[in-house]
C-alpha cells in the first residue's frame, strides 16, 4: 500500500493522466476489498474485478516485469464465490513469484466449470515454490475457510508449474450442488 502511494506521489507530479488511472484502480481495489472482509459470500465477477484492479496497480508499479490476463466466460461471472481468497492467491503470485524474479513474468487467471464445480486457476511463471517449507499463512487460512464453508466439496491445490512458476487452483461447488 505505501509503495503504491509512493508511486502515486511521483505520478501526481510528473504524469497527471497516469496518476488519475492509478487512483481509479486503487479506488476500485478498495471498494471491492474493504466490505469483503465481513461478508460471507461474493461473486466471481467481484473477486475477478478486485484481482484486476490489484494487478493493474502492480503493472504500473512493476512496469515491464508484469503482464496479466483474465479468462472467464461471461456466463460464470454471476456465480457465488467466497471473498478474499482469489486476491490472496494473486498477491502470492506477485509477491513470491514475480517480484522476486529478475525477469518479466505473466499471471493468468482462468475460471472454468468442471462438472458441478467452479474452478479458478491462478498461474504464474515466476520463481516457483522456492522454499521447502512455508509458514504460508495466507494459504493455510484459505484452506481452513474452504473447509468451514464447503467441507470436502471444495479444494485448494497448489502445484509447481512447468517449466517454472506455480499453479494455484481453487475449486468450489456450484450453489445447486451445495444443497
Amino acid at each position, binding site marked *: *500500500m*505505501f*509503495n503504491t*502511494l*509512493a*508511486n502515486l*506521489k*511521483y*505520478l501526481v507530479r*510528473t504524469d497527471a493522466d497516469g496518476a488519475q488511472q492509478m487512483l481509479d484502480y486503487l479506488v476500485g481495489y478498495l471498494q471491492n476489498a474493504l466490505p469483503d472482509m465481513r461478508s460471507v459470500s461474493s461473486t466471481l465477477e467481484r473477486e475477478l474485478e478486485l484481482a484486476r484492479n490489484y494487478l493493474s496497480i502492480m503493472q*504500473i*508499479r*512493476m*512496469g515491464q*516485469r508484469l503482464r496479466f490476463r483474465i479468462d472467464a466466460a461471461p456466463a460464470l461471472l454471476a456465480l457465488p464465490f467466497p471473498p478474499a481468497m482469489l486476491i490472496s492467491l494473486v498477491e502470492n503470485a506477485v509477491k513470491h513469484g514475480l*517480484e*522476486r*524474479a*529478475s525477469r518479466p513474468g505473466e499471471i493468468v487467471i482462468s475460471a472454468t466449470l468442471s462438472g458441478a464445480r467452479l474452478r479458478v486457476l491462478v498461474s504464474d511463471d515466476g520463481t*516457483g*515454490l522456492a*522454499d*521447502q*517449507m*512455508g*509458514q*504460508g*499463512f495466507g*494459504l*493455510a487460512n484459505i*484452506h481452513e475457510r474452504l473447509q468451514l464453508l464447503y467441507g470436502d466439496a471444495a479444494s485448494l*491445490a*497448489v*502445484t*509447481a508449474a512447468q517449466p517454472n512458476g506455480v499453479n494455484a487452483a481453487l475449486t468450489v461447488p456450484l450453489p445447486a450442488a451445495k444443497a
Partner: protein
Amino acid sequence: MPTALIVEDEPLLMAELADHLRALWPELEIVGQAENGIEAVALLESLQPDMVFLDIQVPGLNGLEVARHIPESTQIVFVTAYAEYAVQAFEAGAADYLVKPLNTARLLQTIKRLKTRSRDPFQVPPGVWHKVFGQPAATPYMKWIKASVANTVRLVMVSDVLYFQSEDKYTRVVTAAGDALIRLPLKSLIAQLDPGQFAQIHRGAIVNYQAIDHVDRYGATMEIQLKGRAEKLQVSEAYSRQFRQM
C-alpha cells in the same frame, strides 16, 4: 563530487528518488541505478560509490543481503515501505533509514546527515534496537510442506499429514490423499512442528495425534492404530512414555 548508487526495483520510485536527490543535492552524482540485488552487488564493486540508497525488497538478493557486500567506505541509506526492517537495517550499519513514500523534509535531513557524517558506521549495540523496537517475533510452526509426488512438486498442508516416516535419505509424508517425499530429515522436521499436534514415536517416525485411533500395548512396546488406515505404527520404548496412562 560525492557519488551515489540507487537500488530500487520499481521504475517510478527509482525516478522519484533520483529527481529528489538531483533537486536537493545538486553536487551529488548518481553514478548507477540497479533494479535487483545481484546487479547492485556488481555495480557496488565496479563503481565504488560513496553512498548507496538501497530498497530492501528487491529481487535477487534483498537489500539486507546486499548490505553484507558493501565495503565500510560506502554509506548505506535503506529505503523501504516497511518500518519493520529498521532493527536489521541499523544492525547492518545503516547511516539512515527512509520510509516510503519519501518526504522532502525527511530526505533533506538524510542528506545533511550524509554530508556531515564521517564514514565510520553508526555504532549502536544490537540489543538497544531490540529494546526500542521489540524482539523479532518467534518463528511460527510450519504450516505447509513442499513435497514431490512422482515428478511434480506439491504443497501439502501440515495438518493433513497423518505421519512422517524416514526412508533412506528421504522422509515419506503420508496423507489421506496419498504419499509424498521430502528431503528434510525427521530431526529438523520435529523442531518445526507444533508439539501439541505431532509427536515423535520412533527414531524413524512422527505421528499426528489427530490421526491416532488408539494405542495397543504389547509388554514394553506399543503400537498405534490409525483412524481408517490399515497400517500400524510402532512406538519404540524410548518414546512410549507419552502414551502411558495418566
